[in-house]
């Protein structure tokens, strides 16, 4: 039997194979987009175990609803929409405590000093704390734009919001981040 070359297939062709219950096609689809989905989740929930579970649930949802995918949209956009809705639902149900950073610290590379790693961790913590201070309606578009590198139009498609609203939320989110970081620096100076 001739082996199919899944790696050279377009996303929609893979989905058509998945609809014929070809699990290898789904495995290829997941290999392409697992990091995209995982990175969104981990940036919205600061716990690796929760992020792992959520990311798995997202792909299970994608698998169950593959027949509802419309080729009018990119697959990545459709996946991101499922991911963002799933994460937002999870945060609402859990009234998520956003202060935990357990397990989030960077492991030192071979050529990095402990001081360099500490600085990187401190900077990452600063950003995570600042992002966690944002309401979801600002945090989600900010994460999608600045950390996932998505365009305004893609974010508008993912969130199902008009383009102008997405832009306004990103601008407002940036302002809130700037104010939070500025205030936290002033606070540190005052304590010293």
């Amino acid at each position, binding site marked *: 039997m001739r082996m199919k070359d899944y790696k050279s297939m377009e996303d929609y062709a893979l989905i058509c194979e998945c609809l014929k219950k070809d699990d290898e096609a789904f495995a290829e689809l997941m*290999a392409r987009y697992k990091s995209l989905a995982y990175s969104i989740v981990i940036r919205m929930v600061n716990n*690796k175990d929760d992020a792992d579970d959520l990311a798995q649930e997202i792909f299970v949802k994608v698998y169950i609803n593959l027949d509802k995918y419309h080729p009018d949209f990119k697959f990545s956009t459709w996946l991101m929409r499922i991911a963002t809705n799933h994460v937002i639902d999870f945060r609402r149900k859990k009234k998520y405590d956003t202060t935990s950073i357990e397990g989030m610290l960077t492991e030192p590379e071979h050529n990095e000093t402990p001081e360099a790693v500490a600085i990187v961790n401190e*900077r990452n913590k600063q950003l995570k704390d600042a992002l966690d201070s944002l309401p979801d309606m600002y945090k989600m578009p900010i994460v999608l734009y600045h950390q996932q590198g998505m365009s305004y139009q893609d974010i508008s498609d993912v969130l199902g919001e008009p383009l102008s609203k997405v832009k306004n939320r990103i601008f407002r989110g940036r302002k809130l981040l700037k104010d939070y970081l500025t205030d936290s620096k002033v606070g540190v100076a005052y304590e010293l």
Partner: protein
Amino acid sequence: MSCNKTEDLIMRYMDGSISEMEAVKLNEHISECELCREEFQAYDEVMALFLESELEEAPPEFEERVMARIACLTPNYVRGPKWTLNNVSGTLWGIYCILFGFGVMAVMYRDAVLEFISKNPSAASVVSVLYPIRDRFVQLTSEFTQMFEQLAVTFNTYAAQSRVFVLTVLGIIIAMQVVIYVKNKDKAEAE
């Protein structure tokens, strides 16, 4: 440039969509205005934090765990062609264009069409209805043509007499537009 435009330009800088001229204006302004400079530095710090933040890879065995979960699922996929909104609207437009094309051809070659239809005995009743409609259409076309010809004659009469007046008024309007444009340009550069 005034301070209330600084934030807009900083946002465009963060989007990576700031033009060279805008960047020059922003630089000039923040070199003179301490408050805006601090504002810019604060936003720059936000950008630096984003750029430093690391990419997150899915953990090892992530795929195996997902495949194990879906192995016990049997979703009922609804197969078949998807009638998306684009497909439906495209099909409707296509049908409309074809019908419109046939309609235009039927009007342009109405005599030939009617003659062709009249050769068919079973279509005699249809043709008997269509001939008066054809005649009325010809009459209306002729009336509209006469009306437009009359309007053209009237216009030519007045146009000849008022040509100089119209050209003078047009010249004044164009001159005023040029003056207003130059003034607005100078005002924008001064800001």
